[in-house]
């Protein structure tokens, strides 16, 4: 007997887990650094930042669930070796298998019971709106063939979902109260810090309330309907939106992972060593940043696509191929976006280089690289951190733009960009199909807004001028 599933570790999954490991490691290290701990404590006390962080955490959770990939085991023939499905699924797919499998024939509006366009029915010469296979299938029909209680059913499901969400939230609040009963008293002793901290806690709870209510409503309605409607081939748009989150997160984080070592090392080298090294690095990044970014990326992506297409034997499954393309996109975006950070770090290094503690190290004959590592790099980390968080939202948006232009991720990869790309045609239809664009837009908006608000708070906390 083998496992009932065969775990699959895609390259992007591996890198994502490495990244998370690094972040956990760094935060453990930061806990021991007084200055860093103080700055993060300021972020923790900021209500808006903590609300944004809560939203981000939900997105990250969805993205992580979507990164646990496996191939399901096929029903085995007697005596034969266990064989696994060609399709690679994720834990999120398994959780949402209802949504994933309930596909319709084609477009249907949110919460509809019939298709969006008329079709010729069997046994009839008339063109009618056919019933959906899944959306509202549980509703009974009256004698004339009309549905009974559609609105009422939606209202009932909606209120049931909201009530469920509220109940869950109240339960959580009660648990937190219970646990914090001791904590609150401890905070009182600390003094003024307590009030700011509890304000941030309140912001988190309120954000969680909103999330729970939305979640409850989505689960309750999603059981019988397509909450965001279906797309051209009848896939549930809510499912697509949830799947697109992982793509956005990967692009936002892995790109920075690719970019960071180059940006940091080249920026510091250019600033500290100077001379021809500086000239060379400056030449490279001025050249790179004077080529229009989209053009450069498009050229690189097209070349890579040719390579992938001519070597189909490299990939066991289509998921692996799509994954390779996603990674390549991260790489290309990273190679073109390191210039900004490098330029920033070069300028800051030029300033630090003249400081007396660097000269003191030179007077001891400390080597160049040791000075860069011990004296320059640690004093630049706050800039690196700020630019990382600020770049994240820009990269999520960049993916959408690139996929819209057609040079982004693999067409089989679900992303906000591909959803918006297909929406181009849908908006031109008559009557217009608006829901996949709306769904992609609202999810992306929430993700980017949360990332931006969080980045603002991080910048404020680490900016020495704003810290009183």
């Amino acid at each position, binding site marked *: 007997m083998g496992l009932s599933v065969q775990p699959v570790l895609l390259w992007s999954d591996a890198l994502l887990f490495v990244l998370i490991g690094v972040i956990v490691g760094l935060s453990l290290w930061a806990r021991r*650094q*007084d*200055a860093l701990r103080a700055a993060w404590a300021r972020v923790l006390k900021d209500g808006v930042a903590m609300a944004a962080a809560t939203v981000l955490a939900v997105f990250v959770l969805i993205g992580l669930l979507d990164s646990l990939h496996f191939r399901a085991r096929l029903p085995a023939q007697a005596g034969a070796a266990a064989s696994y499905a060609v399709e690679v699924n994720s834990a999120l797919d398994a959780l949402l298998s209802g949504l994933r499998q309930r596909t319709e024939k084609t477009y249907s509006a949110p919460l509809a019971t019939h298709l969006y366009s008329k079709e010729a029915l069997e046994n009839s010469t008339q063109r009618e709106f056919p019933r959906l296979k899944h959306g509202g299938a549980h509703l009974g029909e009256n004698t004339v063939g009309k549905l009974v209680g559609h609105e009422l059913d939606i209202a009932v499901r909606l209120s049931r979902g909201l009530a469920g969400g509220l109940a869950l939230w109240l339960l959580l609040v009660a648990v937190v109260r219970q646990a914090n009963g001791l904590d609150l008293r401890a905070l009182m002793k600390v003094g003024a810090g307590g009030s700011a901290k509890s304000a941030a806690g309140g912001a988190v709870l309120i954000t969680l309330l909103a999330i729970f209510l939305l979640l409850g409503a989505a689960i309750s309605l999603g059981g019988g309907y397509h909450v965001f409607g279906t797309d051209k081939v009848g896939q549930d748009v809510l499912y697509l939106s949830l799947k697109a989150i992982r793509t956005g997160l990967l692009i936002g984080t892995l790109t920075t992972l690719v970019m960071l070592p180059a940006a940091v090392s080249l920026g510091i080298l250019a600033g500290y060593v100077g001379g021809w090294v500086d000239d060379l690095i400056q030449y490279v990044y001025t050249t790179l940043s004077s080529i229009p970014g989209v053009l450069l990326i498009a050229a690189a992506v097209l070349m890579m696509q040719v390579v992938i297409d001519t070597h189909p034997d490299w990939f066991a499954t289509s998921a692996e191929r799509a994954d390779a393309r996603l990674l390549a996109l991260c790489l290309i975006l990273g190679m073109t976006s390191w210039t900004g950070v490098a330029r920033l770090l070069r300028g800051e290094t030029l300033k630090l280089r003249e*400081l*007396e*503690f660097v*000269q*003191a*190290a*030179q*007077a*001891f*004959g*400390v*080597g160049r690289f*040791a000075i860069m590592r*011990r*004296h320059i790099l*640690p*004093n630049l980390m706050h800039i690196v951190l700020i630019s990382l968080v600020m770049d994240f939202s820009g990269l999520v948006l960049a993916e959408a733009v690139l996929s819209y232009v057609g040079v982004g991720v693999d067409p089989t990869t679900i992303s906000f960009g591909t959803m918006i790309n297909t929406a181009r045609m849908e908006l031109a239809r008559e009557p217009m199909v608006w829901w996949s664009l709306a769904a992609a837009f609202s999810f992306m908006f929430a993700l980017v807004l949360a990332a931006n608000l969080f980045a603002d708070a991080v910048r404020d906390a680490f900016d020495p001028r704003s810290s*009183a």
Partner: protein
Amino acid sequence: MSILAVRDLSIQIGAARPVDGISFAIAPGECFALLGESGCGKSMTALGIMRLLPAAAQVTAGSVEFEGGDLLALPESGMRDIRGGGIGMIFQEPATSLNPVLTVGRQIVESLELHSPLRGEAARRRARELLDQVGIPDPVRRLDEYPFQLSGGLRQRVMIAIALAGAPRLLIADEPTTALDVTIQAQVLDLLDELRRQQGMALLLITHDLGVVARMADRVGVMYAGQLVEEAPRRQFFSQPAHPYSVRLFAALPDANRRGGRLATIPGSVPSAEARHEGCRFVERCSEVMPACRASPPPWREVDGGQRVRCFLPGLPPSVAAIVGAGETALAIEPRPLLEVADMQVHFPIRRGILQRVVGAVRAVDGVSLQLKPGRTLALVGESGCGKTTAGKAMLQLIRPTAGSVLLDGVELTMRSTSELRPLRARMQMVFQDPFASLNPRLRIGDIIAEGMQALKVLKVGAGDTAAMIGALLEQVGLRPDMADRYPHEFSGGQRQRIAIARALAVSPQLLICDEPTSALDVSVQAQILNLLSDLQAELKLAYLFITHNIAVVDYLAHEVAVMYLGRVVECGSADEVLRQARHPYTQALLAAVPRVDGLRSEVPKLAGDMPSPANPPAGCHFHPRCPLADEGCRRSYPVETRFGATHVVRCFKAT
């Protein structure tokens, strides 16, 4: 009738009270000096009077009466007329208090248009008069220049002209000369004094410099931890200070009489502004503590003749026994010099054009020759921009000299590569000026001190001994060994400078180049550091190259003095020779420009103008454009060395 009366002014920032119940009055035409160390609330008081406090600060009590009206009750629009019009203000840093993108004339006219009916050509004419009045040569041309085209001294004069544009009855000067050189400081102080006499303008002078107070003030108020502790007419204050704090401030001043001895220091540090006080604020640092001092805050007590003091002590406090040194300690002087610099030059190329052709050079150091013997102190003195810091760094090979030779204990340094120099680095180290920039904020104190030992492989023993060595070093500079685990931001300026000294000592050098090690510190802390340096010299036979512009420190500490002007040494010799029998007119003027605590004015004429640019030094003797004795010969050729006695060397045709 006073022009400004401050009563019980208190200012609060969060839990801190930087100003806590201050009362003083200024009569028309009077100069009142607020004296205190950094962080005692002087500047905050001035900003409170002008109602220019930062957003977080607020006046919690008291009143500020200006010409009979309460400033704190005025609406903001009324206050705008007072600022500039009634009360003018000049700030410490002339480089940042002028707008860099507006011409000087535009900035003066702006102030004129606000406070007078003058417009257009008339305003411009008045602006020219003002520039003339503050002693700026060629005012018509200067009106159309930008601040970056002016030197620091000229910028401060422009600031004063702008302040005068509104014809204020009171001028608040917040450390007006702290950022300037002594010769320029003397010019600016003279100007302020003259303007005050001409226009009957009252002056509130905020400073930490006893010399400036002695030069300028009619009355003095000493601030400590947010309160005035003593108020007295100048003469009385300087002849018989009544508060123990004032007495100790005087005792902490270095000068020649204390040479070889120790300076009196004030133990501990100024209490934080957040501290709550039961009794006297100075109680923790005072040597005359009585039980009453801790119980309640001391009331004002009249001494006599307008001198008041906040102290329970009846009569005057005993003067601190300034341990008068035995003069030169008769050290057996080794004949062989430890450091020998001959004709060292540091030129920075000036590049222009697309091809970056070298079109000239900034001659920062232009032929310096020095000798320093083991266990001795050589002071390198000069105004900012004369190349003394560059010279110090070039001796350490932190900046490679363009020409000349540097011998350390007979070993030539200039020809060696970076790796060949490394073993020699343990023998020469540097202590930097700014204790806040010279320690990496991300490293622990222990790591900072260990860095040199690791880099130079001074340690041949195990790691446990490293910690022991760091502890011993920290104790040697007067800190506790357990401080090794802390970060620099937890320390005060004086403590940081001690750490910087410990870092240099870690590799047991023979030569320590100290680049203005006390200029960023308060007087009482400066005394601690100077004491530490002289103790270390006695203990370890260190040779110091002391780079400074502070003549008093030189007088106290140095065995030999070299005076630099525009990249060259113009006079050198033993401290007595250079400071008592100065032969070079520049040295004489430099010494005369130092404001003296005893208030005496010297007869030597003060220097006019600024130092020329080292990119384009004057022909002949560099000093001739500013020299009162210059003649045709001085303009033609650079003077050769003239020797007076065995050690005294002067480069001047006129030296006799």
